[in-house]
């Protein structure tokens, strides 16, 4: 019995040992150095959102803060308006239809029928056919972004976009930084910002002059990507592709940008993403 008592005491001490971190200065402050001539791994935040989703502006704000912190080259937001229609549907008060069939198809594949909003994916990390580990709430995005930004860059990307004669033309080049033993696919899309249209806000009020940012407009490639490279690829290789799309005159060129990303089609993980203005 004595041994048992001694063991129990030891066990108690062992389990009680973990201390509690008491934080007196919660704000980090300072600035993050965003100046670097070398390309590093960037982050695409696919923010599933809706103009009748009252918590969605908070998610948009998180992206804005991350862009302010790390720079618009490293954090690339994309507002995906898909489902459910109770959040994204058009009504008299919310007359703009931001949804696209591609957005709905993406959500259906990565989540299911009726996702809770706001929710999103960062570089589509941790996808699996079981579970929702690839999805994260807005509060996870700062931590996940910090981790993704520090991760190894496996392929560098360069892209340029121009609009001429009603045609948007994009060219992209990829430069493997490590050996890539899987095929690569590329996705090229257009997004538009500074769209003024009503939005339901967190306090249940309607903001008629809300400015929508990073709205997914259309894809120049297939939603699920176009072949960009075939395994194996090694540093020194150059991958390239050109893509085009008839310009929709409803879109404001000055507020639009092209987003290009390459991903591993086996697990959908985005290896690199860049955003380029339209010339």
């Amino acid at each position, binding site marked *: 019995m004595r041994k048992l008592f001694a063991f129990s005491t030891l066990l108690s001490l062992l*389990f009680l040992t*973990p201390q*509690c971190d008491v934080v007196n200065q919660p704000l980090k402050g300072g600035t993050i150095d965003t100046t670097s001539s070398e390309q590093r791994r960037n982050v695409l935040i696919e923010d599933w959102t809706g103009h009748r989703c009252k918590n969605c502006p908070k998610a948009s704000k998180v992206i804005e803060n991350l862009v302010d*912190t790390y720079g618009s080259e490293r954090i690339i937001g994309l507002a995906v308006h898909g489902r*459910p229609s109770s959040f994204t549907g058009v009504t008299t008060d919310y007359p703009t239809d931001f949804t696209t069939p591609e957005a709905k198809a993406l959500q259906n594949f990565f989540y*299911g029928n*009726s996702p809770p909003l706001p929710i999103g994916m960062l570089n589509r990390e941790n996808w699996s056919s079981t579970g929702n580990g690839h999805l994260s709430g807005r509060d996870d995005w700062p931590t996940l972004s910090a981790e993704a930004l520090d991760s190894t860059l496996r392929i560098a990307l360069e892209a340029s976009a121009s609009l001429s004669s009603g045609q948007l033309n994009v060219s992209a080049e990829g430069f493997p930084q490590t050996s890539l033993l899987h095929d690569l696919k590329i996705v090229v899309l257009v997004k538009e910002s500074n769209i003024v249209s009503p939005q339901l806000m967190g306090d249940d009020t309607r903001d008629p002059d809300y400015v929508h940012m990073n709205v997914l407009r259309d894809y120049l490639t297939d939603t699920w990507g176009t072949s960009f490279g075939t395994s194996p690829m090694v540093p020194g290789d150059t991958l390239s592709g050109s893509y085009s799309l008839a310009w929709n005159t409803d879109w404001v060129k000055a507020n639009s940008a092209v987003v290009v990303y390459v991903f591993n089609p086996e697990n959908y993980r985005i290896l690199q993403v860049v955003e380029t203005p339209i010339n």
Partner: protein
Amino acid sequence: MKRLLLFTWVIFSAIGSFAQEQNTFGGQLHGNFQLDGQLYLRDESIDPTGEFYPDERFLGQGYANFVYSDGNFSSGLRYENYQNVMLGFPEGYRGEGITYRYLKFKQDGLDITIGNFYEQFGTGMVFRSYEERGLGYDNAMDGVRIKVNPVSGLSLKAVMGRQRFYFEKSPGLLRGIDAEYNLSKELFPKLDSAGLRWTVGGSYMSKYQRANDPFLVLPENVAAGGVRTQVSKGPWAMQIEYAYKANDPSADNGYIYKDGNGILTNVSYSKNGLGIIAGVKRIDNMSFRTDRNGSTIDMLVNYLSPTAQVHTYALPALYQYATQINGEEGIQLEANYKFKRNTALGGKYGMLLSINYSVVQSIDKDYVDPALDTLRTLQGYYSDPLIRGDIPYFHDFNITLSKKINTKLKLNAMYLNLFYNRSVLEDGLGDESILLNPDGQKLMSGDIFIVESLYKVRRKHYLRTEFQHLSTRDDRGSMAMALAEYSIAPHWFFSVQDIYNYGNPDEAQRLHYPLASVVYTSGTSRFQLSYGRQQRGIFCVGGVCRVVPPSNGVSFSLTSSF
């Protein structure tokens, strides 16, 4: 119909051949199995845009538990499949696999479990790991648990592990210990022999979660602890638990570093047909999860029991109370009295009268000016436990009479007055938002009348009926419900019901929600087939709730055990 009967017979024959205790390797093998499925039908009346209508017309899910025990050793596993998860359950359940497995043995005074386990410290304010299948809630631990009684009257529990997060694990790690001591038996034997029971207990739980936030210095180790005592003598019993949690900025509390605390007190008296229970609870910032960014019912470490009655009748169940983990205070009073037989009110068979009152509101919160960003983040708000909060969340006052009229007929009658703050309980609006715009609250108040009867038609034949009426001008408006169940023991059970939402402010939504079911039971196996409409609602168990979308279709359920 012949095909259906044949299908049912084949299934039951297969189960029947297995549905008996299995003796394997000298030990015993037990198990149970459940399979649910629904064929969804498009119903534009309840879902005009089709947002809830699944692309797959049929959704099904199931599980099977197997437990093997032999002397001091036991082991078990659970297989779950979601192909795909049914509407209303968390969509995190995608796919299939073994989600629960463990080995357990007792040796040298130690009770050791490795693998998955469920456990609770005290009332659960510091730690509770449990499963509630109807909710899709499962925060099973995966790790190690040790139980030991080092000296007489003292029991210790130590746990370490990660919680289940659907088919994955929580990012945070838990380590905790709980001790309970029977004070009266060991130190005050005279009190014990006089019938006084007194136990004291304490628990400690530490969470570790890595942090890499660019803006905030987040605590990676967060601790919570609690003390409790329980005293009983004769008809009286009293239970008090106090819990404290250190700074734990999270999505729930808006990333403030304020500490949390909670107190739960219950006093009860029971004698001569009279039972009284009084409960008081106050919690302040007691959200505790293994992922600081978790939400809804995901990865909760603790359990904060509701101070409200859980209703099983359909209409009150539409407005169940969900515990507000960021802060609430409430009381619950319940009194039961059984009028004796052969008295004026008791009549020939006696009568049971139950009165229940519960009320819950916000706690006092004096918010720090957002302009003071560091203090606002550190403290968030100040709260005085002696001052009542301004926002009413919920109240429920109900009276129930239960009386056996004669040898064939029993009656229950209930009146219920309800208040339900939809902005808080359905929309999850925070106190600060409500205080800034109190007129924007969506409130619901109403009265519900219920009459239930159970009539013995003849030997083994029973008819149960329910008539319910909700009278309100709020939310979906008034509703009436009728239900009839006919059971033929021990095999058959038939049920039809209809809820008519005749008072819906939207005339197009003044709909009927009919549901018909047939159940066949054979031994330990049960097969249920239902067809009907289900309106949107909130399904709660123990103060934890999930939203149920509207649906229409044919559903079935098969359960069996051996």
